[in-house]
């Protein structure tokens, strides 16, 4: 069983939902990433998404765009990233998901990249510009190695949700709103409807995680109350990192994570 799957069954047994946190590696530098991960683990994050920067992050809003630029300027490279993942793996068993763009994998070859990632300790991938139509090679490379987490959107048809669910493992990522990451809109009725529809359609066969614009304990509470299995918080962590000095990072991230995690226990 994959670490992600195990995590969800462990949480189900405790009657808890999952808090998934996202940070960009190398933002604002590698040391900060390590401290932040320690804080996330201490604060109780159930799954950690590590963003790997791409020069053209077209699904991301200003906060993650800026973090990508800074990370690249600081010299984030694939090999160094895998070394960092290995270091993180020594600290924790928390499932680690790599979020980046298709070209980063394509460039090295899907199979090559995925096996290196798995060796380092990555459990799954999220590629926001990978559509199922183009995913054949990617899926083949990931099979038996890592989970493939696909995204759906409130405008995804029922028929497509079915197709996407077939190739998704780990959890299904429901993009809450029309927009890029970090968008601030409040919770929309169409999102609540999408959650209800997708839950009904998937019948608990795969956990549903909601992300994009989820940033406060109140947001988490609201989404959990309508029955999602996981919430994904990203830009809010990066904003916190942006304004926190190195020696405060672990402590500040721990307490923010705790405040979010609290809302996932029902």
């Amino acid at each position, binding site marked *: 069983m994959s670490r992600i799957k195990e995590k969800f069954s462990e949480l189900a047994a405790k009657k808890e939902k999952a808090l998934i946190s996202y940070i960009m590696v190398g933002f604002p530098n590698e040391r900060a990433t390590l401290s932040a991960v320690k804080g996330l683990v201490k604060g109780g994050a159930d799954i950690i998404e590590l963003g790997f920067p791409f*020069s053209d992050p077209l699904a991301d809003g200003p906060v993650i765009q800026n973090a990508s630029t800074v990370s690249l300027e600081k010299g984030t490279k694939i090999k160094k990233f895998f070394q960092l993942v290995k270091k993180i793996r020594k600290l924790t068993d928390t499932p680690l998901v790599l979020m980046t*763009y298709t*070209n*980063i994998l394509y460039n090295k070859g899907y199979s090559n990249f995925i096996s290196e990632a798995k060796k380092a300790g990555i459990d799954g991938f999220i590629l926001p510009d990978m559509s199922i*139509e*183009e995913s054949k090679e990617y899926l083949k490379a990931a099979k038996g190695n890592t989970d493939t987490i696909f995204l759906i959107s409130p405008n995804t048809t029922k028929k497509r949700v079915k197709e996407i669910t077939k190739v998704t493992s780990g959890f299904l990522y429901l993009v809450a709103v029309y927009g890029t990451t970090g968008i601030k809109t409040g919770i929309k009725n169409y999102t609540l409807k999408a959650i209800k529809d997708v839950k009904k359609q998937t019948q608990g066969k795969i956990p549903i995680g909601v992300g994009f614009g989820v940033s406060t304990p109140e947001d988490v509470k609201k989404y959990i109350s309508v029955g999602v299995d996981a919430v994904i918080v990203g830009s809010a962590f990066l904003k916190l990192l942006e304004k926190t000095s190195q020696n405060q990072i672990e402590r500040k991230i721990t307490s923010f994570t705790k405040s979010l995690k609290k809302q996932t226990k029902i």
Partner: protein
Amino acid sequence: MKYPKGGRFGEFGGKYIPETLVPAVQELEENYLKFKNDKIFKKELDYYLKQYAGRPTPLYFAKNLTEKIGGAKIYLKREDLLHGGAHKINNTLGQALLAKKMNKKRIIAETGAGQHGVATAMACAALGMKSEVYMGYKDTIRQKLNVFRMNMLGAKVHPVKLGSKTLKDAINEAIRDWITNVENTYYLLGSAVGPHPYPVMVRDFQSVIGEEIKSQMKKLLNKNPDCVIACVGGGSNAIGTFYPLIDSSTEIIGVEAAGKGIKSGLHSATLSAGSKGVLHGMMTYLLQDKEGQITETHSISAGLDYPGVGPEHSYLKDNKRVKYHSATDSEVIDAFLLLTRTEGIIPALESAHAIADAVKVASNHKKSESIVVTLSGRGDKDVEEVQNYLDKNVKN
């Protein structure tokens, strides 16, 4: 390739897009397939192309230039004479009309040199629609005349201050806008790039260039040209020139921007120096580093300053049907001045790349042979840029 199945030209193309855009791209493909053969749509588009944009454009025998070079006969396909001053209007009229049929109220576009933005603003004004245009901040400065024109035409221009602040970043921002406003917005993409069906749709709208070349050459010489040459940014004027001649024996040459020289690393010659990758919804040749990060490009012409290229060009490069050359900034300035002085035609810096290559190619061809160069746009927008270059590089 007539209609690429699944959007693939060989291995190139496809649709690598966020899920939110999938329904929009599907809706676009369905409507495009429906209207492209619709009699009324075709008649309307034809009307605008003729009466509004000024088609057909002349095929002009550049006698003075030909004599000066002393090789094959050079003909210029005068897309520079179109309304707006570039081939871009062929595509914007087609897509704006399609958007109107699809009941889309809001049009967004990206622009590099500003020519596509201007052509979008014009088509939207003519068809009574609102447009917003994303343009790299660096380009808003080097092509500021076009920013004024867009403003006057009623388009809202958003300068993009991210990344390299050029065309690729303008496309990123336009895609982000599209994701955010997907329900009411039509993305009017300006070149034969992006996710399927854009590359094939833009090619089809631009193919009027090659179709006219064929029939004009038939009238003039009763044969196809021996060679056609066009500049390649995203590749729309080039594919529009090439596609109708793909199954003929005509030699076909695309010309990329070699900037300060391919070896210098400061260029935009994607097909000449790039490698395969995924950007802006397509798999194609890209300028990228070993880690898959897209690299910054350079060209004296904003319209060619792009690290990708339309997927059909990648396909035509690999199957060797088309040869891709490149021209440096300095060769381009020479060609710009040469055409201006010999023929009294001021070409866009983009188009001057094709002229620069034609000068080389013509001298290697027999006098009995004919070369058609697509003059994709006029150079009024570039005179300041050229003057600055000349001041800096004392040449003349």
